[in-house]
């Protein structure tokens, strides 16, 4: 049971005593479909699965967390997910640590917390206020604290890295993980997040 009082999925109920049975271990690609082997041109032979991709990520995961240890963070672990919460740390340093461990960036997302100075009002209370005054309040309402959430895949585990950025300026991770470029562009357009980075681009293809 975690700190939210929930049983993690898969560990509760009648499955509690049974270990998870995994019969979908990597097969040699193409074996299950003889058609694939027989009919493909020679240069399109199936690729053998790299079993290392399914191995437990423990050493790499430990190495990442060791590298990030000089930043203060809050750690929380769930099934197949580790959450690390940082405050105002360089996102590119964190990305570099994950890159060195062989992780891949799945995606990133932004979020603005509800400002503490703007208490939540119910729909009825809001309706009772004069509309002009409400518009004025809404216009001067400060933006909430920005936090960015990076999702890294390291083996089976997803690392959810939350970085709060009060300065609204965040180091770009696109030079390390080019896949982040589009997400950063979207966050810049929609949430006015400023990403600092040198001009880079994805590598040219042949």
């Amino acid at each position, binding site marked *: 049971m975690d700190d*939210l*009082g*929930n*049983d*993690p*999925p898969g560990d*509760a*109920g009648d*499955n509690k005593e049974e270990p*998870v*049975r*995994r*019969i*979908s271990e*990597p*097969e040699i*690609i*193409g074996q*299950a*479909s003889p*058609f*694939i082997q027989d*009919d*493909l*041109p020679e*240069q*399109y*032979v*199936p*690729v053998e*699965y*790299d079993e290392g*991709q399914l191995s437990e990520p423990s050493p790499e995961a430990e190495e990442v967390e060791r590298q990030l240890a000089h930043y203060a963070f809050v750690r929380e672990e*769930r*099934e197949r*997910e580790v959450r690390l919460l940082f405050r105002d740390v360089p996102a590119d340093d964190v990305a570099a640590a994950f890159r060195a461990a062989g992780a*891949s960036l*799945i*995606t990133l*997302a932004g*979020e603005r917390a509800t400002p503490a100075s703007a208490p939540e009002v119910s729909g009825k209370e809001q309706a009772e206020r004069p509309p002009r005054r409400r518009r004025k309040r809404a216009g001067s309402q400060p933006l909430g604290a920005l936090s960015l*959430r990076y*999702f890294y895949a390291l083996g*089976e585990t*997803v690392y*959810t890295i939350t970085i709060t950025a009060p300065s609204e300026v965040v180091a770009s991770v696109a030079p390390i*993980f*080019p*896949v982040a*470029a*589009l*997400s950063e562009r*979207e966050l810049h*357009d929609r949430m006015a997040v400023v990403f600092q980075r040198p001009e880079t*681009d*994805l*590598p*040219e*293809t*042949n």
Partner: protein
Amino acid sequence: MIVWPLYSSGPRQTSLRQIEVIDQYLSPPPQSSVTVDLGPYDASLPGPLRLRLGLRPSAVGGPLGWGAEIASADFDTGYNYIGLEERVASSPIEWGSATALVEQLCGRCSQANTLAFVQAVEAMAGILVPTRAAYLRLVLVEMERITSHLLNTAETLRVLRMPEEESSLRDIRERVFHALAEWTGSRIQPGLIAFGGLSRHVDEPTSKELALAARPLERALRGHVASIINNGELAARLAGLGVIKPEQAMLAGLRGPNARASGLTHDIRAAVPTGAYEEEGVTIVAQRGGNVFARLVVRLLESLESFRIVEQALDDLPGGPVKGRVSLDVKSGSGIGRVEGPRGEVFCWISGGPEGLTGLHLSTGSFPSLGFLPSLLRGRQFDDLALLILSLDICMGCLER
């Protein structure tokens, strides 16, 4: 290629418009670059998208031996923006309506998106799913993969002007939709996947009918796949086109068939199996070519593999209920869901509590594919634009979430 009657004789007369076009082709190729704006609505684009291309003269292609090469490419999105994530962040959405909203984001990947969302919620709330429901969810997602891959392949064959093969694949796709509609009551977005299992009961005879319908479809598709893959002319046209090396695919974060066509054998169904994928074996289809033909081959073979998985899952379908005990009256928390959709991994992060869904982030395989599109287009012939875009199989519905 347009072939105009340069020296026509007899009653056919060359029109003024034709003479203008002939003059255009006979004139020397332009020396300076031109910029072409495509979209937001264009037949060669995967959806509402603006593509700005810088073209320069090229010595390859064109009816008189010169053509246009793409020197630069850039895009703008947001023409069909739904804003669901912002909507959720601004005010909570009730759990009951959230699933339908996520399912309706996209027509071609609706089941994969919904399953990732539902799995994220189930992970947050600790909801267990009955085995029968897990199997039926797998069937839904795999059938969606078949229809999505067949659509992309048929579109590619349309661009290549192979109408017979195109119509054959479209016919099989329609029959898959028909079987799906007979089974669930709806061709797309059946609203079946729900927290804790399925929203409706699927009885045994209906499941057996689906299994019976799937077998002849697989056999029919197998024949067409063999003829397409062994078509030497097609392979020669596509094999050198749009090559993505494995390291480029890895760096760009490509997912799904696009990555597997470049030799990256990553598949969430095998790497991080959840639900019925823990029980049913999945064969990963991969190619080494990394070109447009390899991506076409991967999608065709994956369609066959999905048929095999559907048949196997329906054969192994256990009995029992299709919905577990669901209680979303939990403390605030968050969860993640990962599903292999038709375009690669669908990743979903949610946060919420008793008040409903308060945070949502959905990332699909189309995201890295669109990010990589400018790099893929640069240096290619303008004539190949439609084939290159189709080969990445970008879904704008998922992007504009």
